[in-house]
């Protein structure tokens, strides 16, 4: 088994008495594409928020590449090689597409070549001079993913990246992330075709706890998972 890039132990978040995440033990081997799925309100965004430091954990530890990062602020975690895309598109709308990618690349030690390379990869070269805020919704999402690429992350966390994308854009997205090398991917996703086609392994959250883990085939066949999604008594 490959070395673990990310591991959590007992990760818990309580909001005013409501447990959003309860004692999550999670291990992610280097190089894997992992999907994190679960019904709405299962605590997926809270969980990844605690991984990258946007949300302070109530208790528990987060290890990144063998280092305890539980106490580090978000920007320090990012500097270690984590990239994160928001569930609701978050770019610099007033700046050019080129500058958006440039800001991501520079912080990670990249240069002009990194920017051109990323723009070409995500197909935004022609729009490099355009204001990011003027892009279509789909292009804005692709831009944000491109900014993640420019960071050359070792772990790339994507929160519902295909939400609101057209079919053709979803296909492009699948090609983009499966083509990444040296990057571990943690993907929150509702689109099951994306999950089943890209993920090597799936973790299912329900009610803020891990319900099941396994390969796409195992998860598909798991009765508990089906119940959680369909909302039967068993869940």
């Amino acid at each position, binding site marked *: 088994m490959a070395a673990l890039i990310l591991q959590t132990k007992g990760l818990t978040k309580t909001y005013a008495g409501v447990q959003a995440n309860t004692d999550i033990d999670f291990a992610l081997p280097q190089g894997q594409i992992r999907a994190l799925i679960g019904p709405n309100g299962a605590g997926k965004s809270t969980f990844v928020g605690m991984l*990258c430091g*946007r949300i302070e954990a109530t208790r528990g530890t987060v290890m990144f590449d063998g280092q305890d990062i539980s106490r580090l602020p*978000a*920007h320090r975690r*990012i*500097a270690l090689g984590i*990239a*994160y895309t*928001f569930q609701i598109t*978050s*770019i*610099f*709308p*007033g*700046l050019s597409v080129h*500058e958006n990618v*440039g*800001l*991501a690349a*520079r*912080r*990670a030690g990249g240069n002009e070549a990194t920017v051109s390379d990323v723009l070409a990869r995500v197909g935004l070269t022609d729009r490099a001079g355009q204001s990011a805020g003027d892009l279509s919704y789909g292009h804005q999402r692709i831009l944000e993913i491109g*900014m993640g690429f420019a*960071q050359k992350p070792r772990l790339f966390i994507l929160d519902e990246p295909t939400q609101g994308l057209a079919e053709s854009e979803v296909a492009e997205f699948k090609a983009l992330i499966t083509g990444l090398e040296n990057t571990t991917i943690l993907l929150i996703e509702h689109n099951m075709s994306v999950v089943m086609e890209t993920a090597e392994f799936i973790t299912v959250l329900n009610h803020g706890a891990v319900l099941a883990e396994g390969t796409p085939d195992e998860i598909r066949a798991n009765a508990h998972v089906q119940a959680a999604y369909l909302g039967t008594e068993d869940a």
Partner: protein
Amino acid sequence: MNRALALHLSVIAALGAAFFVLPVYHAGNLARIMVLAIYAMGFNLAFGYTGLLSLGHALFFGAGMYGLSLSMQHLGTPLLPAMAIALIAAAVVTAVVGALALRTKGVAFMIVTLMFAQAGYLTALYFSRWTRGEEGFVLPQHLRQFAGVDLSSAMGRYYAALFLFAVTLLLIGAIVRAPFGRSLIAIRENEARATMLGYDVQRLKWLALVISGTISGLAGATYALLFGYAGASFAAVPYSILPLLYVLLGGAGTTLGPLVGAAFMIYLFDLSADITDAYMLIAGVVLVLLTMFLPQGILGTLRKRALPWLP
């Protein structure tokens, strides 16, 4: 040479020539405008570029003004050391206020900076034995000299103001083009995204504020030096609001907006005072119209409509 730098140098050259072309009265006005533009450029770095709306910059302006004038008045400190004291005073005050005020955001940040500035103003009044409070004091004439140039003469004052204006403009021009400046703009545009790209947003904001406050302090010290007077009214609330108005009018986040805004507003007051005693009314109406129809200010609108390269 890029267009932005060429534009900045042209503006500086035009201002250099203006002294010989303009009538004495307007040259005097322009000297004052340039000093206030330094102040507004400092403010603009925090507000226009970093998105930090401070309502307490009079404190930093005042720290520079009193740093220079009190050391000259009471210790007989010569010009350069007095200027150094002014800059250090402004930097230290901003560093401390920034460290505390930046724990808040948005409206709370506005209120906290306003309160700090008010405390500074009251401090100046409290120590009126030295500051002479609102009444203020006149700086010793013999200390307002530099390398044989009399800074209280029309020409000495004008070119001293131009020199410091030019230095500040080129400095700001360089900052906003550098990666540091680009990261400040990123914070203004989307703070959460900047953090999640790995930028240490708190530290960058603090640095921006310290530079902003120090430049404001430079303006305060220069004002006292060139116009020979220091008083507590310069540390009061209106002096926190003025640079905001200049920057909004000229164009927030443009390098030359502060100059344009300061010139516009000072002449607006000046010209409307010629027409009526109720000049504030005319000025007010014009300001309302401008913010309604040019919400991005004069240069901001120009940049959006016609000149996208405008720095």
